[in-house]
Structure formats: structure tokens, C-alpha cells
């Protein structure tokens, strides 16, 4: 909707219920431009993007911050933001463009730098489209004190801007090397991993993803009672709910690794149920169950299954499970969801997979690429 009153025939940004002006101002959310002297914008912008989301993943939103590091023009970041998130006048609801002189200065000083790496200046930003400063239409010029760096930059002591990912990365990036000063974790409001110099954000502690070399950021994260187990994200779940085929941990980790082929011979089927290890009994076992088991374990199709006797003198010590007689009525369930406690035969189950999952094979035809004759 460019004009103040719009015919909402097909434009998706228009309110299709009436012909009122659809242009509206919205708060700036593009991190790159959160330190501008204005905080309302409207779309489409001067680069043809239809939303801040599209701007945030655009080519220009990577190009300009990298170009700012070269110091080619003091107000390049300000100019880039007037294109990416143009100012919106809250009264007229109109976009306020950059002045032509601002555009010209940025282009004159920085276009050649792009040329060195074989890139062109963004073609959408032709300066002729912008009003002359001092003319009768308002336009933007950088005011005193406008910040040369964006929030995505680290400002060197010398005033240069370098991408914030270069702060304390071990490389001297600022012309005065100030990006490698004060790199202690606490100086940067980060948490230092015990026993190493690695700094991590506080939000990474006990979040289920190990970040410190000795995984200490994921240790001692939960205090579960005796009859509970800790989920991967450190929630506590009662042990009777563990591996019962239903998710109780919000990250579903109570249902991970419940079935395994574990034994000296490496292939006796075992289920970790209610936090205890059970052997699966051969009573009423069949090929379909072997197929479900191997599929759940991400293995190929089982070729055979053998019944293994328990070690002599062990039956009493082992815990046994056998399959629910109507297991196949619960399609899509995991194996641990369809078994019951007890066993008559005291024979275990040992599926054998000879064909690893059928993957990574190409059609047989054609000459092998490595052996193409020169």
C-alpha cells in the first residue's frame, strides 16, 4: 500500500475488509538497527524486503556489517539501516527516506571496497530515488552522536567497529587490538568453566547441552529424590514412569535408549524398564516383533532370531519381560510400551541383523566417477 488510501485488490499487506490506508508503523526489531535515533519503521523497505524477518536474513544484512569493519564511511551503518528499516513518521504513516547526499557519500566511499572482492553495490539503492537535503520533502541525515557501530558490532577503543563474534576470539581484529583486551569470562558477564578457560553464557548452564570441556556445566543440575531419575534437561521423573513408552520428561529423554542388544555376545535383547534392566523373554515372540525392535534401534531388517538360554543359576537373579498378547493393536508404539513382566520359558531373544540398514548404495549403472579415464 503505497498511497494513503489503497484499493485492496490483491496486495497481501492491505486490510481486505476496507479501503483504508494499510500503511502502518511498527517497532524496529532488527537487532542490527536497534540503536537508531528513531524506533518505528514500515515496510516494504527501500531494498524490496516485505518484512523485518525478510530483512534479517537478507544478503544486505550480512554485507553492510562486514563492510562497516573496513571503516570506508563513518555513517555507513546508519545509512544501511535507513534502507533496511526505513523511518516511519507516526503522524503521516509515511516512510522517511535517507537524503541523497547521505546515499552518495556512502556509495562513493564504499563501492570501491566491494569491487575489490568482486561484489556490486546493492542495485536497489539508487541515490536518484532519494530527495535532496534541504528540499521540501523531509529526509534523513545522521545527527550528532549517531552511533557508527551497530549492536552486532564490538566498538574498538579506536572507534572502529568489528563484528561481535570477533571479541576475544584469539585474533587481533581491532587496529588497536582492543578486541582482545579484558577477555576474562567475568569481564564479559560470562561463566568460566571450572578447570578450563572456556567462557559460556549463563543460559547454557544445565540446559541439557554440554558446553564445558569436562561437561561440568551439566553436572549437579538436579536434585531428584531416591525414587526419581533425572531427565536430560534435569527435570525429575518417578522411576516407574521411565521407559514406559510415554514421554514424561519435557525433552522425552525418559524414553531414550530403552531398548538395546546388550550382552557379552552383544545381541541379547534387553529393555531398561522402570529404571531397571530386564531381559525380554521368548514367550510368544515373532518376526514382526524382531522387525519392530530392529527398526526402533535404527538397524536393518532382522534375518533371524535365536532363543538364548539364560546363564545357569541366573534365572532367579534376572528380571524378565514378555510381550503383551495384543501388542500389535497398538501400532506406532515403541517396544517398551507393549511388554509385561513375567516369563515362562526363561529363554532370551537374540535378533540377528546381517544386512545393515540398506543405505548409501547408488544405482549400479555407469562408470565409477573416481575411475573416469582421462
Amino acid at each position: 500500500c503505497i498511497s494513503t488510501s489503497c484499493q485492496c485488490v490483491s496486495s497481501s499487506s492491505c486490510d481486505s475488509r476496507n479501503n483504508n490506508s494499510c500503511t502502518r508503523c511498527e517497532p524496529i526489531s532488527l537487532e542490527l538497527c536497534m540503536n537508531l535515533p528513531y524506533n518505528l519503521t514500515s515496510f516494504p523497505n527501500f531494498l524490496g524486503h516485505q518484512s523485518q524477518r525478510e530483512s534479517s536474513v537478507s544478503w544486505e544484512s550480512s554485507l553492510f556489517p562486514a563492510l562497516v569493519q573496513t571503516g570506508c564511511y563513518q555513517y555507513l551503518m546508519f545509512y544501511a539501516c535507513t534502507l533496511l528499516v526505513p523511518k516511519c513518521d507516526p503522524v503521516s504513516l509515511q516512510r522517511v527516506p535517507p537524503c541523497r547526499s547521505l546515499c552518495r557519500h556512502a556509495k562513493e566511499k564504499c563501492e570501491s571496497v566491494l569491487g575489490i572482492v568482486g561484489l556490486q553495490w546493492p542495485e536497489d539503492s539508487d541515490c536518484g530515488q532519494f530527495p535532496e537535503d534541504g528540499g521540501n520533502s523531509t529526509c534523513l541525515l545522521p545527527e550528532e552522536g549517531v552511533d557508527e557501530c551497530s549492536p552486532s558490532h564490538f566498538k574498538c577503543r579506536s572507534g572502529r567497529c568489528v563484528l561481535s563474534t570477533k571479541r576475544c576470539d584469539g585474533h587481533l581484529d581491532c587496529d588497536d587490538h582492543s578486541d582482545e583486551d579484558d577477555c576474562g569470562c567475568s569481564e564479559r558477564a560470562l561463566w568460566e568453566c571450572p578447570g578450563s578457560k572456556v567462557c559460556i553464557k549463563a543460559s547454557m548452564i544445565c540446559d541439557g547441552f554440554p558446553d564445558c570441556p569436562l561437561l561440568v556445566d551439566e553436572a549437579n543440575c538436579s536434585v531428584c529424590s531416591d525414587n526419581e531419575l533425572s531427565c536430560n534437561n534435569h527435570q525429575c521423573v518417578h522411576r516407574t514412569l521411565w521407559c514406559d513408552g510415554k514421554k514424561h520428561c519435557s525433552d522425552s529423554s525418559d524414553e531414550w535408549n530403552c531398548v538395546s542388544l546388550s550382552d557379552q555376545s552383544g545381541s541379547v535383547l534387553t529393555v531398561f524398564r522402570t529404571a531397571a534392566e530386564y531381559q525380554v523373554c521368548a514367550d510368544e515372540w515373532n518376526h514382526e516383533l524382531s522387525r519392530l525392535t530392529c527398526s526402533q534401534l535404527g538397524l536393518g531388517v532382522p534375518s533371524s532370531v535365536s532363543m538364548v538360554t539364560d546363564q545357569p543359576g541366573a534365572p532367579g537373579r534376572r528380571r524378565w519381560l514378555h510381550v503383551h498378547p495384543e501388542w500389535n493393536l497398538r501400532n506406532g508404539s515403541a517396544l517398551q510400551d507393549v511388554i509385561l513382566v513375567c516369563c515362562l520359558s526363561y529363554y532370551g531373544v537374540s535378533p540377528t541383523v546381517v544386512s545393515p540398514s540398506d543405505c548409501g548404495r547408488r544405482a549400479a549403472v555407469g562408470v565409477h566417477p573416481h575411475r573416469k579415464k582421462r
Partner: protein
Amino acid sequence: ILGGRVSRRGAWPWQCSLQSGQSGHVCGCVLIARRWVLTVAHCFEGRESADLWKVVLGLSNLDHPGVHSQSRGVRSIIVHPRYNRAVVDYDISVVQLDSETPFVRPVCLPQLGQLPSPDSYCYITGWGHMGNRMPFKLQEGEVRIISLSQCQSYFDMKTITPRMLCAGYDAGTVDSCMGDSGGPLVCEDDGGHWTLFGLTSWGSVCFSKVLGPGVYSNVTHFTPWIQQQIYVHTYLSD
């Protein structure tokens, strides 16, 4: 793919095309199981909804899909919870198709700790920019695996993390490019099986004079997470 060549029909059966609305082909993707494909997280920036996407398999020529092509809707998109757009870290997504098909040739996932050795040669494929135009036919290129330390020396503007894998050449002569994202970097083992070690993720501006290798998501690092997502979404009905 820069510096590659047209691939033979059916040469890379696991390669798929991630397509959205009018845009058509947006990214590459890789078939890893009957109804699961992998791609990179950054392909979904701004278009996170599953119903915006479809996956096309069995393609060679984007413009003439042919009888072997199969189109599938997307049931769910699982972006890695640690995906970081600024550093392009944890750039991986698992995509569940809305139905499976018996005619598939998935690629193998690497075993835990299995990595391609530096200086070994692997293949990248895709319908991305060729430096002067976008192709219709699937392109393939042979690239050399580069160590992380050597790779970091090419990219002083970015951090190369253990979740990344580098491959290509100093002069960038064979490289992936825009539109290849999410596509496979595969290596062949002695038994003739192909394993997926990388997903095209980022690099220097591939049609500029800035040189250097391409950077791929290191699939080996994510194998447990991938298998977990498939298991949870297959066997643990909500």
C-alpha cells in the same frame, strides 16, 4: 556448485530439492530414511511452517521432473534448538515427510566419531549457483576435506566450530554456492557405500573473488541427535 559438472541421472539418489510456493527450489536436502530428510536450519529462516514446503526426490532436471520424481509434503520440521544464525552454528534440521515411499535409496549416516580424513576427496551436489547462472540439471563436484585449523585461517570473520566441516580448495575452484544449502557432502567407503558427512551450510561469497573452501554442517556431531528425533517422532506418540 562452482567448477562442477552435470551429474548422471540417478547418480545421487538421496539428493532432494526443498521447494516452497512460487519460489520453487530453495535448498537442497538429503534422504536418510524412508520418510526422513536432513537439511540446514537456515533454509527455514522466515518460513518455519511445515505446510509452506514440499520435498521432491528422484529429480535430475528441475525443469523436467520426469517419471522418477516423487513429491512429498512435509509433516514436521525440527530445527536444532541451538541453531545460531549469527555464527551459523548448529545449522541442521530434521524434516519428517508426510508419507513414505518404497522407492528410496537413503544415504548412510556416519557412526559416532566417524569423520572423513583431511585431504580425502568427497562429493558435493546441488542445483545452486554455478557462478554465472543457476542450473536446471543436478551438478556434482569433487572437493577435498580440509582440517578445521587450516579452515579457520580462511575465515577470520567467522568462528569455525566443531559442529562444522570444511571442504574445497584454496582457490575456491570447486565449491558449493547459494541454492546448494542443505545438500549433501558424501564420501565413499571401500565397500562402495556412501556416507553423509556434511550438509552445505555457508562460505565466502562464491561468485566474488573472495576465495577459500566451503563450510558444511558436521553430520557426525549430530548423529545421536538425529536418531533421537526420528525415534521420538516415530515411536513416542504424543
